[in-house]
């Protein structure tokens, strides 16, 4: 994963609350392999009308949106379904950071696991950032080490769990980290199984054809 230190790029304002993962990527696109590029599915049904034409004025259809790396939204961003495809859609579109007053719990972990920074700001600061951006993408700087966001003269702080900050700063991957603890895990598993023998008491696996 590519480490994040500073993101200095246009940011898109998305002044909506409760942008759930069903909106971030509608379920019908989730049969596709990642290799097709999920960016085109991002907020598909807000971005397109019922005939599939781009909605004029929707922020992602703005000519400068392609350059954007940060999205600013209102509370409860990424609520709902655990679909990591919602994060794939944001990342494949080009985003490296989402700024909002609160995030869906599972979405935020998924984001960090894909090198997308979920930056939590106060409601007031989110409104100030949205006001500063106005109607179109505008330059915004996110400094992960300093945990600051700046647009012109406006500078606000953001929060992120320290573990997540470290992971993003270093581009670390969990599986590699965990495998270093293989011996401890094996010892735990042996002790745990001896304390709970009933957990192995199920019937033999019955494998049926799908």
């Amino acid at each position, binding site marked *: 994963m590519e480490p994040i230190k500073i993101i200095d790029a246009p940011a898109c304002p998305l002044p909506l*609350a409760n942008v759930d993962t069903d909106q971030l990527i509608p379920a019908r696109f989730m049969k596709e392999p990642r290799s097709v590029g999920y960016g085109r599915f991002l907020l598909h049904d807000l971005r397109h009308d019922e005939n599939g034409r781009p909605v004029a004025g929707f922020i992602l259809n703005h000519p400068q949106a392609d350059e954007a790396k940060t999205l600013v939204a209102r509370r409860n961003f990424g609520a709902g*379904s655990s679909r990591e495809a919602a994060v794939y859609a944001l990342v494949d579109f080009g985003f490296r950071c989402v700024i909002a007053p609160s995030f869906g719990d599972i979405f935020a972990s998924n984001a960090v696991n894909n090198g997308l920074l979920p930056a939590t700001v106060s409601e007031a600061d989110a409104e100030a950032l949205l006001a500063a951006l106005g109607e179109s993408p505008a330059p915004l700087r996110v400094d992960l080490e300093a945990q600051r966001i700046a647009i012109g003269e406006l500078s606000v702080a953001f929060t992120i769990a*320290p573990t997540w900050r470290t992971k993003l700063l270093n581009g670390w991957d969990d599986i590699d980290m965990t495998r270093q603890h293989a011996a401890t895990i094996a010892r735990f598993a042996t002790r745990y199984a001896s304390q709970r*023998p009933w957990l192995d008491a*199920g*019937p033999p696996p019955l*494998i049926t054809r799908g």
Partner: protein
Amino acid sequence: MTMPTTLFDKVWDAHEILRGESGQSLLWIDRHFVHEGSFHAFNKLHERELSVARPDLTFGIADHYVPTLTRRLDAIGDAKVRGMIEQLADNTRRHGITLFGLDDPRQGIVHVLGPEQGLTQPGLLMVCGDSHTSTHGAFGSIAFGIGASEVAHVLATQTLWQSRPKKMRLTVEGELAPGISAKDIALTWIARLGADGARGYAIEYAGSAIRSLSMEARLTLCNLSIEGGARCGMIAPDATTFDYLRGRPFAPRGAQWEQALAYWQTLKSDDGARFDREERLAAAEIAPTVTWGVSPEEALPIDARVPDPADQRDAGKARQLRDSLDYMGLAAGQKLTDIVIDRVFIGSCTNARLEDLRAAAAVLRGRRSKVPGIVSPGSTQVKRQAEAEGLDAVFREAGLEWRESGCSMCVGMNGDLVPPGERCASTTNRNFKGRQGPGARTHLMSPAMVAAAAVAGRLADVREL
């Protein structure tokens, strides 16, 4: 003397392998469910040439994409949908994982199947790449949804890194009035605290109203924990739990049952255990509740009116109300019971267990639905049991379709969709924009309330039927 401990902490501590420098815990996972959507995680595993650490603790279930009109794979017209089901079968076969596949008599929605098969037990730590995994907390286990990267991590290591959430106790005292169900409790608390009201918390549901709930109702309540933003929801196991579990296929037997039971009986919050937050509801103030908007927090008692943005002083909230009303095609201030529906759906991991079907059938018996609709039982076993009781005939005679089991119209992945602009009274869990199909309008409510809406052709109060 040991410190009084919460149920949540007892289960968490029993699974903590180690604590990292950053304070995150590496947790042991007892049960991991995978479904068709887990293909991203399997691909990640294959890219890195990793194997599944504990195939014996991993279970595959075909539910998200399965057709509800047939159990034959070759009868699925959409090649991509068929491919999703085949891919799960390939991945589970390759790694020696037990599969509850399309044609398995035990097939069902993962959160219905787990409890039904006795895979879900008190004190376990369970995960699945599905947010409604919170359902399994009804047995006093810690259960939550994870994303594909975490699914890959669990497949590769049978462990997961997590930060310990804060603890919230939601106490519901008193007796629920007739016609009020677990769905109404859930929609009521979510409407009060917000769709992110419990974010960062593990909820323990407690109080006399919770203790009196059946196992199936507890599953519904815990299922909806995620809709209030909680990490998970749980209920201390008791006689209701143990009676439900005894004799299930994967439940312990004989001496091991006794051994397990002795442990399970210790799984409750000690007197004086400290919670970071306490919330209370009086059972008597809970009415049949329906959603009117596009978030589960936009819910009201059935005798209320749709909110008017003009009454809202906060400009942001007024804007959100207008946006919701616009998507839902509703007028500010209109009576909820004047909302005319186009169809109904009875199904999903939230409300498609036998008790749910019985509640809906009790309302529909001898009546006709004014609108078309689908009934999709939560599992193939539930379907069999319902048929043995003649519930299928009740639904058919009311004019509804009796289908096979799967996630179906809750999420529409298998092609069971609400057409654009149409309004559906649904027993499901999410009224998000486009959730049941592009442009679909969803009203969430209990099975009995969906049945009442079917009979009335509009949202209706089941207590008046």
